[in-house]
């Protein structure tokens, strides 16, 4: 055999091997989900959740695929629009699990939708890491497959009460939205304040979709509380802020629950947000990992992630990725691995106990010159708190 022939043979052998290798590459890991792209939930889902799914799949695939027990497999997302309808959520997940037979699932948006699919994930054995579901009621269902990434209401309200106590707050007035989320937050807040011996001078509920809260706010203002807390959803959070400014209601602490962490809150309300506090977890200053996540998100979508649930969604994907690396796509094994281990994520270490994230502490954040700074607890702070809050500008 001449030298050149030998080289040719080798080249052919290599080509064949390469071709065989290409064919032997495993089928993609199919990950299914339903999420709101239209309807009222879309405003939350398209800020905090689905962009993370897309960015994660792109990043994983760009790096050669998902590491499944040492073998790289591409990720294929199977996403459907749930049109903000609970029935559609349930029907879609049923289809994903029984007819599409996806390998893994990602959660839908919001406490209600997660609540609705809980029986399905338990029945079919799909682990689900939920970044936008909160409430002890969910955890009380004790689904072994459900993992809540977000801090529970009592954890968040305890943190707020601790902050208020540290500032020697005597009186608090609060309003809450008359819905599962608001009710649970309200009772958690009441319990936390009672424990810190802070007096509640007024408490009122209001319905979803309210267009005017000025009469209620006037009443709160007349009581002159040290702190005002609004356990509200995004549309009402905007409303409460705007109308409090209009009537010059300037308590020393002004706290509004959901929506304050959204970049659009700052963009829409402008200078008004300075000193407003709310539910948050992180910001780009929290850690280098948080900064990297923030920058990648802005580069990909030309919009900022929110300062609360977005990073929890990303953390959930990181946990799933680490679990699959060790346990493969055997869903029971993935579930057991998630339940038993601690994970490194964009918001720090996370460990679950009874489905609850017991590592991420309750956090109080505050808008200061365009950033939602973490101001409580001290070990997570990115800035000292502005106290008392400057009057609305």
């Amino acid at each position, binding site marked *: 055999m001449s030298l050149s022939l030998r080289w040719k043979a080798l080249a052919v052998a290599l080509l064949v091997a390469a071709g065989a290798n290409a064919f032997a590459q495993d089928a993609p890991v199919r990950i299914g989900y339903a999420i*709101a*792209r*239209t*309807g*009222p939930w*879309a*405003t939350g*889902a*398209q*800020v905090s959740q689905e962009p993370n799914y897309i960015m994660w799949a792109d990043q994983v695939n760009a790096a050669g695929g998902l590491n499944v027990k040492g073998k790289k497999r591409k990720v294929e997302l199977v996403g459907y629009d749930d049109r*903000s309808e609970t029935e559609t959520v349930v029907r879609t997940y049923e289809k994903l699990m029984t007819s599409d037979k996806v390998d893994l699932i990602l959660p839908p948006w919001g406490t209600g939708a997660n609540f609705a699919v809980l029986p399905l994930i338990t029945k079919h054995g799909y682990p689900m890491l939920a970044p936008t579901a909160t409430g002890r009621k969910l955890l009380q269902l004790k689904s072994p497959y459900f993992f809540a990434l977000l801090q529970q209401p009592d954890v968040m309200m305890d943190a707020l009460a601790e902050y208020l106590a540290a500032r020697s707050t005597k009186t608090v007035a609060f*309003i809450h939205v*008359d819905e599962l989320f608001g009710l649970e937050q309200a009772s958690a807040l009441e319990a936390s304040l009672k424990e810190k011996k802070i007096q509640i001078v007024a408490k*009122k*509920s*209001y*319905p979803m*979709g*309210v*267009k*005017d*809260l*000025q*009469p*209620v706010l*006037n*009443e709160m203002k007349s009581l002159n509380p040290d702190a005002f807390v609004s356990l509200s959803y*995004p*549309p009402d959070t*905007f*409303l409460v802020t*705007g*109308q409090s*400014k*209009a*009537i*010059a209601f300037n308590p020393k602490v002004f706290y509004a629950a959901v929506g304050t962490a*959204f970049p*659009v809150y700052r*963009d*829409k*309300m*402008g200078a*008004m947000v300075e000193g407003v506090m709310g539910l948050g977890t992180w910001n780009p200053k929290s850690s280098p990992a948080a900064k990297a996540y923030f920058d990648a998100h802005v580069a990909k979508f030309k*919009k900022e992630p929110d300062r609360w649930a977005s990073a929890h969604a990303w953390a959930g994907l990181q946990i799933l990725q680490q679990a699959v690396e060790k346990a493969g796509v055997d869903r029971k094994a993935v579930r057991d691995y998630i339940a038993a281990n601690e994970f490194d994520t964009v918001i720090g270490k996370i460990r679950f106990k009874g489905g609850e994230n017991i590592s991420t502490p309750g956090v109080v954040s505050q808008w200061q010159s365009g950033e939602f700074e973490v101001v409580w607890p001290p070990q997570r702070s990115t800035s000292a708190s502005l106290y008392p809050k400057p009057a609305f500008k």
Partner: protein
Amino acid sequence: MGFWLELAASGLITGGIYAVVAMGLNLQYGLMRIMNISHGEFLMVGAYLTWWAQTILQVNPLVFLPVVALMLFVLGLLVYRLCFRPIARTAANAEVVEARSLLVAFGLMFIVQNLAYLVWGADLRGYTFLSDSVEIGGARFGANRLLVFGFALAASLALLAALKFTLFGKAVRAMMQSPTGAQLVGIDTAVLHPAVFGAGIALAGVAGALLSMVYEISPSMGEPYTVTALIVITLGGLGSAGGCLAGGLLLGLVEAFGMHFTSPSLKMLLSYGVFILVLLARPRGLFAR
């Protein structure tokens, strides 16, 4: 100003917002029996156009108001041509127009909403405009809300006057009473019908532009406004410009006082309670003709 006056003023201002939301639909459904259930969607389009102009072109939303009106008017003519002209032409009577237009508008609602998702995405949007407060006799109100209230008053009165005192208004009313009769006396219904429909869409767009100064916006914002509009025009009496204003103000007042005396959570109960009471007493609305 006393506490009660302040409460009343707050209710009136919110009521004014309700009236603005209802005006466009009042023209379409109240006068023409076109059940445009996609009313809120055109309101949303008006809001988005204003937001666009404000954030991208830095145009003052007030200056942009006539532009929105004109753009939506043209859009209204187009929609009429494509969707409602065939109905208006082939329907035997007003009831048939009502039923068929409801179906068509229902489809239109999905199309417009999904187009908005495609163009603007699902994110909440908004900008700050006239958020400072105005002090009136010791009470303070958001300037943007006062502006909407002022517009509601002015536009309602102008509409009332136009329908009552001008030849154009007479022609419109004649056309509503009897399309054939109107044609016989020389009214060009082929022009007037689309024009009134277009004016309804334009008013929806203007309402959306005004609301975008007060509230944040999203593609799904329209539907609740359609419901509000239907309640207001039914309460006030279909087709009555004065009734539309009165209906809106009444709802606003009931909510403000109701929220004070009971709980804000009972808002819906109170609004629908008043709605039912009024309809029991005057089945055709407050200002039925």
